[in-house]
């Protein structure tokens, strides 16, 4: 084998290794960027949207839902909006969702990112009837510090703006202990009924809204199945869901003996 052949073969090998390296470099950089770009905890999606990660995968970014929205509530994310690019979202303080009963936005979605199964009317046999009140775009959260109703000033803007008045937001009557003479009428949100339309946030009279829509995932905790409501037979059923119950093994020291057998604890 001549010297020349040897170097060309080695160069070919070098080129292959270089290509592989560049491929990996590009992939890692690209992957890191996409991972950052799809992080989107604070985004409110249109009615019927899938869970955020599934939504991001399935939204083809065509903007048909945005065009279908008669109030220009929905907007397409631009690069500078720090929302995954091209995806539909809304900002209720600017324009809330007005809860069109015929739901023009979700049904035309071609990819299934807006899933009309999530908006099917309860108890409808045909399954064609949609109910906008089934949508779960977010959840209204009240900041007790800046809501003036919590100061004792009577304001029911959010309550009156809510399309599900007395279901999603109700007013709680309380005595004002601070003045000793007056009453509070505090807005209380029911997370089971609230759709996250944002009409309350839009209507809120404070400089920066004291009632705001957060993505449900972000706003809500989760109890788990280990706690149940006392004296509630129905809620007790949830105990059946517990799978990984660990029973205490019997050879451990019973709780009542633990302090009596203190000798074991002393190292002789």
């Amino acid at each position: 084998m001549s010297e020349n052949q040897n170097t060309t073969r080695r160069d070919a090998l070098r080129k292959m290794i270089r290509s592989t390296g560049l491929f990996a470099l590009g992939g890692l950089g690209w992957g890191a960027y996409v991972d950052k770009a799809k992080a989107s905890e604070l985004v409110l999606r249109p009615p019927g949207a899938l869970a955020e990660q599934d939504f991001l995968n399935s939204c083809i970014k065509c903007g048909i839902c945005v065009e279908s929205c008669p109030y220009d509530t929905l907007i397409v994310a631009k690069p500078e909006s720090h929302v995954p690019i091209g995806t539909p979202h809304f900002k209720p303080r600017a324009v809330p969702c007005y809860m069109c009963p015929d739901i023009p936005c979700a049904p035309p979605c071609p990819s299934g990112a807006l899933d009309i199964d999530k908006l099917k009317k309860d108890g409808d046999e045909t399954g064609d009837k949609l109910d906008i009140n089934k949508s779960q775009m977010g959840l209204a959260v009240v900041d007790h510090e800046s809501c003036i109703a919590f100061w004792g000033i009577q304001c029911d803007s959010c309550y009156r703006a809510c399309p599900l008045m007395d279901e999603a937001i109700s007013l709680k009557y309380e005595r004002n202990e601070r003045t000793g003479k007056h009453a509070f009428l505090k807005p209380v949100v029911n997370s089971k009924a609230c759709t996250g339309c944002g009409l309350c946030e839009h209507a809120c009279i404070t400089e920066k809204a004291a009632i705001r829509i957060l993505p449900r995932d972000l706003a809500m905790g989760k109890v788990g199945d280990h706690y149940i409501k006392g004296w509630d037979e129905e809620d007790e059923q949830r105990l059946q869901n517990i799978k990984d119950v660990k029973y205490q093994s019997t050879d451990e020291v019973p709780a009542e003996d633990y302090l009596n057998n203190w000798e074991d604890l002393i190292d002789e």
Partner: protein
Amino acid sequence: MSSLLRRNRFLIPRRIVQVSLLVVFVGANLSGWKVLQGNYSAAHVFESFYLADPYAVLQMLVAGFILNIDVIVGAVIILLIYGLLLGRGFCSWVCPMNIVSDLAHYVRRKTQMNRLDEKMPIKRDTRYWILVLSLVVSVFSGVAAFEFVSPVSMLHRGIVFGFGFGLAAVFMVFLFDVFVVRNGWCGYICPLGAFYSFIGKFSFIKVNHAKEDCTMCGNCFAVCPERQVLSIIDKQSGSIPNSECTNCGRCVEVCDDDALHFGKYTKLK
């Protein structure tokens, strides 16, 4: 005048097609026209069926999501149109980025930026690697990877829904094409173009060459955005075999010897 029209007899219809598609999309957003709603990623046609970008759909599928049948059918329709009929015609007849890259090419020719060209820093097949990479990244990230960075999407989405900083990405493509590589974005980088090159291999409509008429004047080489596809010029007759040809027809327009024509796919002789 008539020679000017003849010299641009494909360029003019191409611009008309590109611009009128954009007008129809913009009209859907601004005035509620129901002809084509959406954008080039997916479109609702006369409110009856959908068209979809097959490359975007492919990325979404490998990223692991079960999509609605609407969007899959839409992608298949587009696949059939280009795969059977138009080849890589999307790039030169539909894609709005073509207007940007042609403008860059024009600026580059007028300023004679080509004189500075040393060795091309990247290879033509880079785009196929980017195509493969986009699918790999889609698998691992669980989202359509190219759709997060695509300046093509930023351009058409920007035109329909408002640009924002998406314009910066488009301008980057323009600068890259003018100052870095001739036809750099479309000819070396864009995985969407690579995808259409892939599926348009055996399409019906091709540019055909008649070797016996060719005088090797080189006009076609001067205008072609994908010069490597002209390797058969003055050597063999038949259809341009390289599917990186975008069917733009620039070479047909400038050929003074009638040695290039649009025609049906024929084997090389």
